[in-house]
């Protein structure tokens, strides 16, 4: 057994389980002393609050309705509320690979091998639900353009037709148990009887899609469809009236994506008159989504359309389904885009115009080598939320389909670390891309290989190395680290108020009744430490407190001292999360601080009895997302 972490790739190659045996945590046996508490005078606190702009929780609640649990019978969409209340736990999936059957092990689906489709994807829903996800971000499912294509199946973000479903994800021989329902749905959609399960019949595809969503809803999983931002080259050829051109009259190509063309949202940018064909297309897209039962839309490159555009489309969707959710792929305020032919990025105005949640910057978390950088970003978003005057959230975009596998940065321990972290951060709906939950490196052996059989004009298996394959029919995502899934499951169970139920075998029991509220609505309190690599914060609500303490260093253990205002001398530190990697040690110094030794990439969550933590903390360290219900 290896106690120190080794290279994740090497570990995978050697099939080494990186989890060392867990050592019992030594507790200090010192006498109880009176903690050295810092109590701020009300006057001082008000002054600091006024200056810092951090606002403690207010009683006055503005906006939204409480998210109620939903069942299939009389199903009612509540994804928008879930997003706004930070309750969505999202898995990004690609239908054509989601449950692909790669029998020859070359990781490319060829010949008789069965690629992922809308029917076999259903088989993975129980597993997904069991892990704790309650929302699927379904990456684009439309037929792909075949000209100038990237990859042998075409990029899923290069739609040939926005209003159709890719026949390649239709199962022409669905299991009997689903066939009847497909026929029923087909009839509902067309008024005709289904005679042949023809993948090229668009209504068959729609029927299968609707079935898949029904199956999601049966398991109380919400489904959100990814709306591509651009059209394929073939689409552009067919719809020149919708396409943007540059000052020289050439179609605009977003830099790095030669297979797609930008849409033209304005008829006249000067007068900001919208381009109706594009608007109508998106209106029909919303119609299609609602008809098929989708609960929301993830808008690819939200910045690609202006606020006037989204004002129409989002409000239109709410006319059809008030709980229809909108997630914007938008990152951070940029005065301009570094990507050629792409407009500036302004998350705040997209949120203000109706998007419920956005991507944010957590995908660069691995570049934040100091805890303060994380705290600053949390603060920035809470401030934005409070400035908008409505609840708005982010997804935990630590790794999306546009990012390299987090396994490449720090291996399974790092993925477990970020999983626990994002499950505890405020204003966050945890998000993962399929495969992350078991540690997929997204390293495909056919990377850039030339193959004979292709569905496009390209014989090269284009892959963005280290990222999930969106260009080819590839294997089902997944890795060899099931322990990650276990960690996610445990972290999500805390958010779902199912901790004790889910972790029956654990020695550690959770005493608080509503950890979910603490995590999704509680205040965020930074706990100062003397080591910038230690991330330490508390979540607090109604006198209940959860602590997060973690080491963001992927190379070595770190130690330090953390100040916890109001920490009781008799407080024990029992980690609620599964143990992995090197051992962590905690010693209550009985002076309002704890000395810690944290293993590489270790993250721990503790329940502590510290009702006063919020009051005793420096107001500058206390942040509260307002307007939550």
């Amino acid at each position: 057994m290896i106690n120190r972490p080794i290279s994740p790739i090497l570990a995978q190659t050697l099939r080494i389980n990186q989890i060392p045996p867990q050592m019992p945590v030594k507790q200090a046996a010192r006498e109880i002393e009176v903690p050295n508490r810092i109590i701020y005078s009300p006057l001082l606190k008000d002054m600091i609050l006024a200056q810092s702009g951090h606002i403690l929780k207010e009683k006055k609640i503005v906006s939204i309705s409480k998210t109620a649990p939903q069942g299939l019978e009389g199903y009612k969409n509540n994804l928008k509320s879930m997003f706004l209340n930070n309750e969505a736990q999202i898995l990004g999936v690609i239908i054509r690979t989601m449950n692909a059957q790669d029998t020859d092990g070359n990781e490319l689906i060829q010949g008789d091998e069965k690629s992922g489709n809308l029917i076999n994807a259903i088989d993975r829903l129980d597993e997904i639900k069991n892990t704790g996800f309650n929302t699927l971000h379904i990456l684009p499912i439309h037929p792909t353009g075949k000209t100038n294509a990237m990859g042998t199946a075409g990029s899923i973000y290069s739609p040939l037709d926005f209003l159709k479903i890719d026949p390649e994800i239709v199962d022409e021989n669905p299991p009997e148990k689903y066939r009847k329902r497909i026929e029923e749905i087909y009839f509902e959609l067309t008024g005709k009887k289904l005679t042949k399960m023809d993948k090229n019949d668009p209504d068959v595809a729609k029927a299968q899609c609707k079935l898949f969503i029904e199956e999601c809803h049966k398991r109380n999983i919400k489904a959100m469809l990814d709306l591509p931002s651009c059209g394929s080259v073939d689409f552009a050829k067919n719809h020149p009236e919708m396409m943007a051109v540059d000052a020289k009259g050439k179609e605009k190509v977003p830099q790095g994506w030669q297979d797609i063309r930008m849409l033209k949202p304005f008829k006249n940018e000067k007068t900001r008159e919208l381009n109706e064909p594009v608007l109508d297309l998106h209106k029909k897209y919303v119609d299609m989504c609602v008809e098929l039962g989708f609960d929301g839309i993830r808008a690819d490159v939200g910045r690609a359309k202006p606020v006037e555009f989204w004002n129409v489309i989002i409000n239109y969707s709410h006319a059809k389904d008030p709980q229809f959710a909108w997630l914007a792929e938008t990152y951070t305020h940029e005065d301009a885009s570094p990507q050629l032919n792409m407009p500036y990025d302004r998350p705040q105005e997209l949120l203000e115009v109706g998007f419920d949640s956005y991507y944010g910057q957590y995908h660069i978390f691995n570049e934040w080598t100091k805890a303060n950088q994380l705290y600053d970003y949390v603060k920035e978003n809470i401030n934005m939320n409070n400035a908008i005057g409505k609840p708005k959230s982010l997804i935990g975009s630590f790794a999306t389909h546009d990012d390299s596998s987090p396994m490449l940065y720090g291996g399974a321990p790092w993925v477990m670390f970020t999983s626990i972290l994002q499950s505890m951060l405020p204003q966050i709906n945890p998000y993962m891309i399929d495969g992350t939950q078991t540690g997929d490196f997204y390293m495909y052996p056919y990377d850039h290989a030339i193959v004979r059989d292709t569905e496009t004009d390209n014989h090269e298996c284009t892959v963005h190395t280290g990222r999930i394959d969106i260009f080819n029919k590839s294997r089902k995502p997944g890795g060899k680290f099931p322990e990650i899934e276990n960690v996610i499951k445990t972290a999500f169970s805390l958010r779902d108020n199912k901790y004790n139920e889910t972790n029956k075998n654990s020695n550690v029991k959770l005493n608080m009744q509503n950890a979910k509220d603490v995590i999704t609505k509680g205040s965020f309190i930074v706990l100062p430490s003397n080591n910038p690599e230690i991330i330490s914060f508390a979540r607090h609500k109604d006198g209940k407190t959860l602590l997060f303490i973690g080491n963001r260093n992927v190379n070595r253990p770190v130690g330090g001292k953390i100040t916890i205002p109001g920490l009781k001398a008799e407080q024990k530190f029992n980690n609620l999360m599964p143990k992995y990697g090197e051992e962590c040690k905690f010693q209550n110094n009985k002076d309002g601080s704890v000395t810690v030794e944290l293993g590489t990439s270790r993250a721990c969550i503790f329940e502590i009895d510290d009702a006063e933590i919020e009051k005793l903390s420096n107001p500058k360290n206390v942040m509260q997302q307002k307007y939550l219900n």
Partner: protein
Amino acid sequence: MTLIVSPLLKNQINNNGRGKKANHEKVYEDLKKHANDVKPNEAKAKLVKENPIQQTISAVKDNYKDGKNFFTAVKTGKMNDNSLGRINDLGMKAGALLIASFLAAHAKTKTEAIMQFIGGTTFFASMALWPKLFINLPARIVHGFPIDEKYISAQGDKKDLYLDNQFIPTGIHSEKQKRREMKRMGINPDEPNAEEKWLEIRRKTALQNRTLWMATAGFATPLMTALVGNYVQPKVENAVIEHGFKKANEILSNDDTLNAYFAKQQDLSNAKALEKLLAGYKDRQLDDNFYKELADVLEVGDFSERMKDVDDWKSLNKLKSDDVIKALKTVKEQKSTVDITDLRRILNNIEIPTAGGFFNQAGSSKLPQETVEQIINNLGENGTLEKLRSVLKNYLSEGQENDIIASVKTNDENFFEAIRTYNKDVLSKIKGRIKAYLDLLNPIAGSKAESVYTRHYSNMMDKIAKTLGITKYKDLKKIKAKGGNKKAQEIMQKQILALIEKEDKDYIDGFNKFVEITQSRLQDRDINKLRAALKDTFGENFPLLKNEGELENFIYNIKPAANDSTKLLPENKTWLMQIFEDFSINDSSAPKRASINLFNFEGISGVQKEAADKLAQEEILGKIFKINSSNGVDQLLTDELMGGSFKNSHIYNFLSRFIKNKNTDIDYSRAKAMICANFELRAKQGLFDAFTKEEIEAMRNFLYNGTISDALNNLGMSNKDIGQNIRDAVFDPSVFKSEGKAIPEINSIIGSIKNLAHKTGDFTEITLQANSLADQLKNYATRLYNNKTWMRIFAPMAIALVAVTLVVQPFFGNIKNEFPEEEKSGGNK
């Protein structure tokens, strides 16, 4: 953003739940109508609009901010990319400052040191000005918009708008500005894609101009820096001279300020070497080598061989080397204490002569133990060698004590300490004082650089060259080449003659007329006819007519040999050329020959010489060079041209020759400076009040520039007694007392000057050495040639660069106008 949809519409939306058969199409149509009820948020980035003053203030602030960011980054490790990039600029500036500081520390002159910093600053200023003047400004004029706009990003960083061609913020310009620029670009502001075109033309123009900037900056910046540096350097040098002169004058103004200034001076640069030497001889017997080395380290003993009196400790610096060693040995005897054990050993072994008696022959015997103990008792504890010597004299035969003194072991700590104290308390102050004195005097009379003295000569050469028109590149090239001083002489002759012919034809004609009249009238010796003829021709103010007796003297002094009038004026050109040839060559006897050629050619008497002197030299050359005798600089020019090279040599040259002849190693430049400064000090103190203003001026001219006789002549004073008085006053040995302390050889020099003067009766004979005008012109021409060569190489480059930047502007920013004005139709919907 405030309004999303109208309340009515909102209500309608809210009432339409999923699955209800609502009229969604109508909702959609309403929403489309109200699409523009929302507007995008205003850009967080803001365009920076500043006038040049604000820009300057901002630049200072930005540099301060960069420095602050740097220290924050060092402290916290936090810094964004933009700040990091700007640190590069700051680093360049800091690096330039460091390099300039290093070079300044090693600079030979203050001007050079200051120019290191000015050069650095100018480099960065040029870097900033080049694009502003030759790229951004023409671009703005040609294209109608600024390509050097800056903006404050959403993160608060100030950046160039077109810093990154692929990251150009939009939405930060006013509609008014956009419309104005679009019209200038020929874009209809109301056409659908007007903004797209406007942005693209701006982007392309900026990109092309920034590329041009990058391509040209490498040449332009150093060129501009050098041009500015060349322009500024003389002004800096002048300021340095003025500052130094003013400061020195203030300190020299009275004894109090001078003494206060000296009190601060100390030169202990030899302290380390002294300690090293003493450490090397600790617990060792001091040998002759030690004393030699010690004398070297102390830098005493080589000042003067004339000062032989050893008065006391403080007079060591007046000793010659051998005396120094002797004196040091004496000091050792006074300070070092005797090792008693060693002394007892020596005394016990010493053989003392015994006198022969009746029974005994004369011989030697050991010193009785009793005597040994008596000597030791008399010496006492910690007895010095000096005391030992006196004690031994009572017991030993004469001279025997020297061996014991030389061989007995001693403790030299007290001696070493005495040396240290002497070096620190006496020598360092003397040397410091010399150095300080020179520092003080250099701005006035320093001969190497940055003094009023050198500035006068530099200005004079400039004036001569310009007057003679020796500024043509091809002439300079010839003069600069090997043997160029001969060429300088030729060119000079040619130019002078040309000038004479061109500008003073009337005078030459007049002069010829004078000669003609004189010749014709001298033959009949009728002075009245001559006077009348001269008066008719030149008027009554003609010099020979002004004073009574002048004309008579003129005739009286004409030698009989002058009867051969045919040789009076062979050819104007010939003799003038001969004159200039003679005093242009570097030959100490040349001036004399020139005088002979000019004034003593056959048939011309002493009177003619006087006339020729007055007319030919002063008036002709005076007119040519526009000399105003009341002007100090021009006076120097007069001296140099009219006789400086053969009559008016300088005290400096004399001193250098004199001292060299005496085979001393004295730094004569010090002596010159000190003599001049001593004079200025006394003049300020009013010690020359007994003399007239003219006499004082004569003293000054004599000291700084020439001989006593010329100084007097220039002022129209020929009385030998006055000259003698002036000379005595200037070189009165008693007033050089303090200078003598600092640099003793001055006394010797002063004495020698006086003796020599008495011997020769005049200084003329001993001051004939100077650089020839041709040599000086050659040096000057070499400098000018180098400057011009540089300009000939780089000026066309600079012109070409500027031309390129201007010529290419109209070709920038063009885009093919392929933009579809109408929507394309068709397509498969």
